């Protein structure tokens, strides 16, 4: 434990850990000091000179990102001299900045704009021509680079040097001709490349996925958990409902990481980040009976029919780590006595690394384990199906064709007398079931995932469900009521 010391911040006495950076200690005390280059996870090169403060006894202004708290330190963050120094640092940042805000995706969340409104608001006295650099560099599959907008804070180069250690970006040349460039022979194509867009305080690095899609001030933000793997990175879901005709009609505009020191730090991987495209593809919106012929039915009717079928034995429940803790608990109750199959199969297994990415590409296998549930193997399930031991097969959000191949899955499915598919999106054989129930996607419900380390994390509802979709646990609850025969309660 660091020693606690007292220091003065704008005349206020503050207690902080000795040695803590003034910029951090001030933030803890509710004082945000402007800065570009400093990032808690990427160090403090002190090159932007925005976080200048006055320190009593120091011969000249100090940068608060490189000043440590000590007993008796007296810091002024808002004196006239400090305000002038910050305004002038901002003015110098803008000498060669193109000011193309109207066509810049960063508009609305730009460090230059925000600080201009906060501490700038001067008339420009720059009469000289601006330096011109490249404005359209495809830095990698996900990131676009505009060198003119870059303020050379080096956050991105420090990210690729120190976090991913892939070194794709560098600051080349010297002085005012200096520019951010790709390292010769490399492109920005690492598993975490999207993070450079988040840490870029200006519009120099933008998301190719998000460029020109929707203005950021039309977006709503909801706290969530990335369902892309068992890490459980904390994310913010940025949804576009205010301008539904923007963003090619997609409701989720982008995902951004949320800081969580215990889980993901400040980052998320590209796999998780750019995983939003399929969210609204082939969405199931209606409760359907598919045999003997396709027919819309009410939740009540479906529930009572399915519930009745689940009363007898021979039930196999197929699910995946996509279920929330709430879903697992409800499933455990509804499918008591049934065999569970939910282990990650090759279709849900991918690359892992030492930074964030985990092998299992589903978020919540640990939640099932915590409830004492265990998964049989899919070979066993196939054998039981072949042997006619499975009377009712209940599949949640799982594509059997991806496990067994289309033909084999089709033939195995036909072995069960009664089959239900439940999920947010269509899958390969989702027509080959007796019932198809629409479930919500993770952005349309709230719940909890338990990550691989056993950390239970909540995710919130960002969007309204599509059509008649309900959360999985709610469907299970409905079925459980129907199964118990208390049909009268179903409507409630």
């Amino acid at each position, binding site marked *: 434990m660091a020693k606690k010391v007292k220091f003065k911040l704008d005349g206020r006495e503050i207690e902080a850990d000795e040695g803590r950076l003034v910029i951090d200690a001030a933030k803890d005390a509710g004082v945000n000091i402007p800065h570009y280059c400093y990032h808690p996870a990427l160090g403090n090169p*002190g090159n932007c*000179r925005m976080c*200048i403060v006055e320190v009593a006894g120091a011969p000249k202004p100090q940068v608060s990102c490189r000043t440590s708290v000590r007993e008796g330190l007296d810091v002024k963050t808002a004196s006239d001299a400090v305000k002038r120094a910050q305004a*002038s640092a901002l003015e110098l940042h803008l000498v060669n900045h193109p000011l193309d805000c109207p066509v810049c995706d960063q508009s609305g969340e730009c460090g230059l704009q925000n600080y201009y409104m906060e501490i700038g608001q001067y008339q420009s006295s720059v009469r000289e021509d601006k330096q011109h650099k490249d404005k359209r560099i495809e830095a990698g599959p996900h990131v676009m680079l505009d060198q003119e907008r870059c*303020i*050379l804070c080096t956050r991105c180069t420090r990210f690729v040097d120190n976090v991913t250690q892939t070194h794709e970006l560098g*600051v080349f040349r010297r*002085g005012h001709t200096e520019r951010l460039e790709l390292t010769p022979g490399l492109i920005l194509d690492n598993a975490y490349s999207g993070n450079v867009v988040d840490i870029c305080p200006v519009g120099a690095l933008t998301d190719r996925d998000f460029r020109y899609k929707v203005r950021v001030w039309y977006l709503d933000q909801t706290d969530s958990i990335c369902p892309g793997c068992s890490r459980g990175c904390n994310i913010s879901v940025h949804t576009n409902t205010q301008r539904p005709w923007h963003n090619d009609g997609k409701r989720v505009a982008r995902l951004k990481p949320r800081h969580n020191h215990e889980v993901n730090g400040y980052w998320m991987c590209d796999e998780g980040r750019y995983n939003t495209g399929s969210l609204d593809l082939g969405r199931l919106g209606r409760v359907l009976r598919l045999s003997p012929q396709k027919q819309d039915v009410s939740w009540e009717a479906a529930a009572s029919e399915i519930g009745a079928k689940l009363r007898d034995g021979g039930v196999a429940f197929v699910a995946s780590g996509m279920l929330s803790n709430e879903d697992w608990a409800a499933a455990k109750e509804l499918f008591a006595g049934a065999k569970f199959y939910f282990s990650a199969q090759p279709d849900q297994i991918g690359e892992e690394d030492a930074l964030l990415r985990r092998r299992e590409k589903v978020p919540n296998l640990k939640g099932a384990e915590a409830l004492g549930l265990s998964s049989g193997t899919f070979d066993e399930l196939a054998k039981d199906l072949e042997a006619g031991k499975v009377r009712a097969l209940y599949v949640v959000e799982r594509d059997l064709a991806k496990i067994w191949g289309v033909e084999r899955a089709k033939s195995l499915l036909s072995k069960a007398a009664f089959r239900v598919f439940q999920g947010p999106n269509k899958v390969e054989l989702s027509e080959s079931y007796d019932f198809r129930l629409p479930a919500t996607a993770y952005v349309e419900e709230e719940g909890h995932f338990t990550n691989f380390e056993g950390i239970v994390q909540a995710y919130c509802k960002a969007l309204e469900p599509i059509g008649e979709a309900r959360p999985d646990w709610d469907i299970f609850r409905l079925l459980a009521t129907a199964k118990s025969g208390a049909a009268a309660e179903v409507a409630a």
Partner: protein
Amino acid sequence: MTKILTKHFDEPKLHELETYKRLDGYKGLEKALTLAPAEVTAEVLKSNLRGLGGAGFPTGAKWGTVPPVDKVPGPRYVVVNADESEPGCFKDRVLLTRAPHQLIEGLLIAAHAIGAKEAFIFVRGEYQNQYDIIEKAVKEAEAAGYTKHAKLMLMRGAGAYISGLDTALLETMEGKKAWPRQPPPFPTVAGLMAKPTVVNNVETLSMLPFILREGGEAFAKIGSAKNGGTVVFSVSGHVEKPGIYEVPMGSKLRDVLTLAGGVRKGHTLKCVIPGGTSMPPLMEKDLDLALDFDQIRAAGTFLGAGGMIVLDETADAVAVAHNIERFLTHESCGQCTPCREGSYWNEEILERMLHGKGTPEDVPNMTRIGENITGKVICALGDTVGMVTRAYIQRFPEDFKKRISDGQKS
């Protein structure tokens, strides 16, 4: 006048070990090796030797900040900053060419004082000739057995002015871009490869043989208060006899000018840049100013590395400021924003002014830009970017006014 470094410059073969040894060479080192490291440092402290690369920091005090081996074990290094790049400075070049052994002896003394087993000589990239000379001298010193306590290694710069700044030099040595570091920690605590490192200028280290041979007090006596020994000025510009002149610390500006033959015939003095182009100029009224690190501050400028540029009445302050700012803009490393952007902005305004397109608002604007750079940047280059134009505006306002009104007339 007393000379220390250039005393034997009449000897044609001074750069060879044999000649150097004949003239008391390596006696200082021999003396130093009989002393404990702390005693060597004490002698240097007594001598009032100041860092002659420009900062003027007391050399003994700098060495004293190297943590002792029992506190911070592991290697420590000495680095010679021979990356002389300041326009107007060429004394290191001459010292390297004429007296390489003097430097090597000084370096070996410093290595003994701080316990460095490895010592580096970082030579400016463009100094090919000097590199060859020093390389040969190092081989001679090795063969003569002087380098038993410390291994000498040579390195070359790649042409950046900023590499002459100690922390940028260390970055360069580590194979990185020459972006200055921001102390703390200072190099003496965490320098090359994060090990305690003393970086000293060529001229500073070259003083050490004399200090050890003759004693710190004898050295201190030569100079002025707190400024021991001599200083070598590189005098250039509008003088009759440009060249390097070694004078005791605290000599008058007038005397240095006299040595250089005075302002060229038929012209009058306008100003003297005392320490290399980055420094604000001295005026005629300062002719009797004593030149040492402390007394020169009274005239609002710095001794720097002794690169003295004399300008006569034909020089135009706007053109001079533009010339210097253009250089600094070109050499700004680009790490911190005020210097990178401010130098460009300032230079562009001056250039516009030179083309007769200046406006009266430009002058207060450049003053403001300068104030917003100096003291708010990472390194000394940035400080000077903001200092130079302001200094010329303040000393020669009529030159700026004339440029503006001439431009408006045409």
